[in-house]
Every structure is written in structure tokens, then in C-alpha cells.
């Protein structure tokens, strides 16, 4: 009522019938919006691959039309349905135009070619710390178990010991473990490699994820893996099997420990991002660092898959200690070259 009392009623003449500006505006552009909407629906269903070359070219133009229509509609229109429609349309189109273009295979290839080795090269410090944690664990485990072998049973979870304990004799270890007969393809590659892979992957992913807890748990877990390894080294050392055991371990151990170190380094990098956020907020810094750290861990899991294959299969196929050392040296060289050089040229070319 306040509006009608402010002006005398007799001054007001009936308003002429006006055409709505916003309705005219809609009429001129609606065809383009509908076109865009149809394209978006197809991309959301089948991916970008579902579009023809011509439609691919039309998409960015239509997107810009929708974005500018939205700006205009916000300024001139009061049609709620129209504005909400344009908001939703522009948003959906935005995600498609600026969304990820690569498929799974391409992502994996780029990751192996560039992402993974680059992430490793830029985290040398964390990798060094993770390596030292395992090394320190190994030293302590060795020192403990070399004098008192009951430490071995104490340190090792049941599933991993595989019947090896302080009671094992040198002959048992040599024939049943280090030079155990080849068990056939399926049993070795599929079952055993699989069990090892799942176990190792669990430990490695834990190393990475516990980085969120500030790094100490990651450090402890790495140290613990070293402890177990050191205890086993002591067991074999006491029976004069040190060289044979190292050969038996190194054939896959180079890859496996490498993977563990990388996952651990990923965890430590996350911890560093949270503890020392520098000039960013902790959350910002976590997402900046987190992707690189996750690249380390993801690559580490892939490496574990390779290690599982080597451990389950090749280890018993190569039945001589010098041969195993040679194989281990070859894997070490291959990984070293990969991490040192892969992806460097591509970066220079960009």
C-alpha cells in the first residue's frame, strides 16, 4: 500500500502493453542454448569421443554464447526459470570445455613417461629420509636378532614368517627357502605373486596415508619393515647363508624396497606439507603437494606389482646366487636410469 499512497492515484494512466526485453532476448538465443544442451547431454553420457569433429568445434563457441547469455540474463532478466537454466547450463558446459580430456590409457602412459619419474626427482629429500628409516630399522633388527633369535618371532607377523624361525636349520633354509624347487607357473606367478603383492601394497599404501598423521607413523612403519628385514638377515648370517640370502632377496628386493621407499616418501611429503605450510594455508598446501605425493605412492604400487611378479616367478627360476645378483643389478640399473632420465626431454620441449 505504501507505493500507491506515495503517488496520487489519478495521475496514473494504464500502462501500454510492452514487449518483455528478456523474452525477446530469449527468443534470439534459445536455439543455441538447446543445441548446447543436446551436445552436453551426449558428452555426459558417452564422453567427448561421442562427438563428431564438427560438433567438437561448435562446443566452445556455444559455451561462450551460454556464458555471455548468462551475464546478460543476470543483468536484464527477472525470469527465475531462465536464469537458473542458464546457470546450470553454463556450469555443465564449463566442466566439459575445461574438463579432463585424457582417457585412462593416456593418463597412465603420461604418468609413467613423465609424472612418476618427475615426482620422484622432486622429492629426493623425502626419499633419502625414507631410505634412512629403513636402513636404520635393518641395522637395529640385525643387532637385536643376531644375539637372540627369539626377536625374529617377536617382530614378524605370522603370515610373513613362512615357517622360518629361530628353530630353522641351515639346511632347511637353504633347500626350503633360498633354493626351493620351482613350483610351476600358476602357483608361482598367480597365487604367490598375488599374495605378496596384496600384502606389500597394503603396507605401502599405509605408509603413504599415514603421512596425514604428521609423518611419525610413516617413519615408524618404514623402520618396522627394516626391523623385520634386519632380523631375517641376522637369522641367515648366523647360519652362514648371508650371501645366498642377500642374493635371494635382492632379485626382487631392489624393486620392492624401492617401491616402499617411494610410498614412504609420499607419506613424508604429505606430512611436510601439513606441518610446514609455508605461505599457504595447510589445506591449500596439502592439495598442492598431495597430488605429487599421491603420484609417488601410485607409482610405488605399480612397482610393487612388478616386484611381486619377480618374487613369485623369476626368483626360483634363477637358481644361482651370482645369477640373482646379476638380475638384481640389472633391475637397479633399469630403475636408476628410469628415474634419472625419463620425462626430462619432454619437459624441456614444452
Amino acid at each position, binding site marked *: 500500500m505504501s507505493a500507491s499512497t506515495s503517488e496520487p492515484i489519478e495521475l496514473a494512466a494504464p500502462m501500454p502493453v*510492452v514487449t*518483455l*526485453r528478456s523474452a525477446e532476448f530469449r527468443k534470439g538465443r534459445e536455439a543455441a542454448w*538447446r543445441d548446447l544442451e543436446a551436445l552436453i547431454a551426449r558428452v*555426459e553420457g558417452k564422453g567427448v569421443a561421442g562427438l563428431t569433429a564438427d560438433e567438437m568445434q561448435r562446443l566452445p563457441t556455444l559455451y561462450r554464447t551460454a556464458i555471455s547469455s548468462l551475464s546478460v540474463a543476470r543483468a*536484464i532478466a*527477472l525470469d527465475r526459470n531462465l536464469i537458473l537454466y542458464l546457470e546450470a547450463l553454463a556450469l555443465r558446459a564449463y566442466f566439459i570445455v575445461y574438463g579432463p580430456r585424457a582417457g585412462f590409457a593416456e593418463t597412465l602412459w603420461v604418468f609413467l613417461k613423465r609424472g612418476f619419474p618427475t615426482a620422484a626427482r622432486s622429492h629426493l629429500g623425502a626419499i633419502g629420509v625414507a631410505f634412512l628409516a629403513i636402513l636404520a630399522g635393518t641395522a637395529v633388527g640385525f643387532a637385536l636378532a643376531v644375539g637372540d633369535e627369539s626377536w625374529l618371532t617377536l617382530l614378524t607377523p605370522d603370515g610373513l614368517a613362512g615357517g622360518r624361525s629361530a628353530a630353522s636349520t641351515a639346511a632347511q633354509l637353504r633347500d626350503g627357502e633360498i633354493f626351493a624347487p620351482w613350483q610351476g607357473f600358476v602357483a608361482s606367478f598367480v597365487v604367490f605373486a598375488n599374495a605378496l603383492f596384496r600384502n606389500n601394497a597394503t603396507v605401502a*599404501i599405509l605408509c603413504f596415508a599415514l603421512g596425514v598423521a604428521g609423518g611419525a607413523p610413516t617413519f615408524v612403519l618404514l623402520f618396522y619393515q627394516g626391523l623385520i628385514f634386519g632380523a631375517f638377515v641376522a637369522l641367515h648370517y648366523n647360519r652362514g647363508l648371508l650371501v645366498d640370502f642377500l642374493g635371494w632377496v635382492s632379485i626382487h628386493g631392489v624393486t620392492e624396497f624401492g617401491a616402499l621407499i617411494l610410498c614412504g616418501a609420499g607419506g613424508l611429503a604429505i606430512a611436510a606439507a601439513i606441518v610446514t605450510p609455508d605461505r599457504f594455508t595447510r589445506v591449500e598446501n596439502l*592439495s598442492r603437494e598431495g597430488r605429487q605425493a*599421491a603420484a609417488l605412492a601410485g607409482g610405488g604400487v605399480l612397482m610393487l606389482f612388478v616386484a611381486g611378479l619377480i618374487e613369485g616367478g623369476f626368483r626360483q627360476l634363477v637358481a644361482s646366487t651370482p645369477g640373482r645378483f646379476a638380475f638384481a643389478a640389472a633391475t637397479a640399473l633399469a630403475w636408476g636410469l628410469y628415474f634419472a632420465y625419463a620425462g626430462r626431454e619432454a619437459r624441456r620441449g614444452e
Partner: protein
Amino acid sequence: MASRLDRINRFLEGVRREKREIVTPEGVALEIELANRGERALAFILDLFFWTMAILFLGLVFGLLLAEKINGAVAVTLVLFAAFLLRNFYFIHFELTTQGATPGKRIVGLKVIDAAGGPLTPSAVVARNLTREVETFLPLSLFFSLEAGGGGWLTRAAYLVWLALVSALPFFNRDRRRAGDFIGGTLVIAAPKRALLADLGAQRTTYAFTRPQLDAYGAFELQVLEELLRRPRTAESETVLAQVCERVCRKIGWQGAAPRADAREFLNAFYVAERAHLEHEQLFGRYRADKSSTPGAN
């Protein structure tokens, strides 16, 4: 702008959505709605269901193809390994190829986006899904493997506590992010589809209104009226329209023939006239938010 429209949602439906804003490279700010926690849980359960179906199917195929060649233990290991690969790649593959939406998310109408509004990079997708392994699948599989092999209740409780803590994380931050969203730098939003309905302004009528009459209302009332007019014709909505019509007539001091017979037609005419008036005023910098605000104050 959209916060103005949001006010109408709250008024009419009592729905309140958490909003964030991203700015496109063209410099236009787009509103995004955070996904509800319930919606996210539903999407995850759907994905889990699809994944289980795929695993069962794979198990069946292995069982039929290889039943005579390999023993049961090998088959079980193969299926377990396939399950491991599948659940890791299911999420990554779909979030990469269908614009940040797994089938479960697509059904519920959710999308993964970069928290800063930039492009969703493959590394972000890998990061957020690798973390899911630790958040959910690892404790779950450990819990169930304990069930089979036996284990202390303390260990078992620890896995459940871990699971509960991780699932509670979205309740303790304002962006409703889970651990993987923090590490990948992502957000999960609701991306509803909206249909463009016929323009109410297209209808021609015989009613005419004076400027003081049209000055009685602002954009808020106009858009509430639009919502009411767009509701499907039922006995209930017609009653509401009749009541609204009566109040509008009283408010603007309508002198002419009482439009009791067809409230809808009268209100539609009033809507068109009011919208033309308010849009005209808005064009001259006198946007009026609602009936109690002064023009141009915004």
C-alpha cells in the same frame, strides 16, 4: 545474483544449499552447490554395488572358463586380484572420462571438480581415489579377513574406529571434503540439470495495470509468483492462486471487475506487467529486491 534466487528456494521449499563460487577464465562467476553428505553416501553405495556386480560377473566367467584347468585357490586369487584392480580403476576411469562422475555419481547428480575451479587434472583424480583405498577398502578388507582367520576383538574394533573417523571427516569441515578430497584438492558438487520451461511472458491478456500498482512489489515477490504459476494445475494449487490473487488485488487496490473467475489468468497478466516494469526499472539501475526495499539499493 544466485543468492537472490536462493532466497526463494528457502521461502518456498525450505531447502538450503551450501554455495561456493568459481570464476571461469572468461571472468564470469558461477555458483556451485556442495553435494549433501547423504547424496555422496548414496552415490558411493551405488558405485560399490556396480563394482560388486562386476566382480561377481568376473568370478562367474573365471569359474565357467577355467573350472577344469585350475583349482579353486587359484581362481579365488585371480578374482581377488581382479577386484583390487577393478575398484582402483573403476573410479579413476569414470572420473576421468565422464567429467568427474562415476556411474553412481551420475545417477545421483554429483560431480567431482577442482576446488580452485581449474581443470580437473588426472593427478587429482588419481590422488583422491588412491586415498579411498586407505579410507575405506583397506580397513574393510582387513576387517573381513580377520573374520575368516580370527583375530583379537581389539584389532577389529580399531579398524571400525578408523572407518568411523574417516567417514566422519566430511562433517568436520565446511566444504564437506573427505581425506581424498584434501589430498587431491577436489570438491564434490551437486550438478542438477534444469529444463528451460515456456516463458510466462508470452501470453497476451486484456488486463492493464498502473505504475503505482506495479510499484507495490519487487523481484522477490515476482519470482515467488512465477514459481506458483509454474506449478502443475491441481485443485490445491488453484486454491493457493485464488488466495494469492485476492491478496494482490487488496494490495494494489484493484478497482476493476473482480477476477474471481480466473485467478490464474489475472495473475499471469499481473506477472507479465510486473516483470516488464521491474526489468525496465532494473535497466535504469533501479533494481528492487523486494516490496520493502528501496529501488536501486540492491
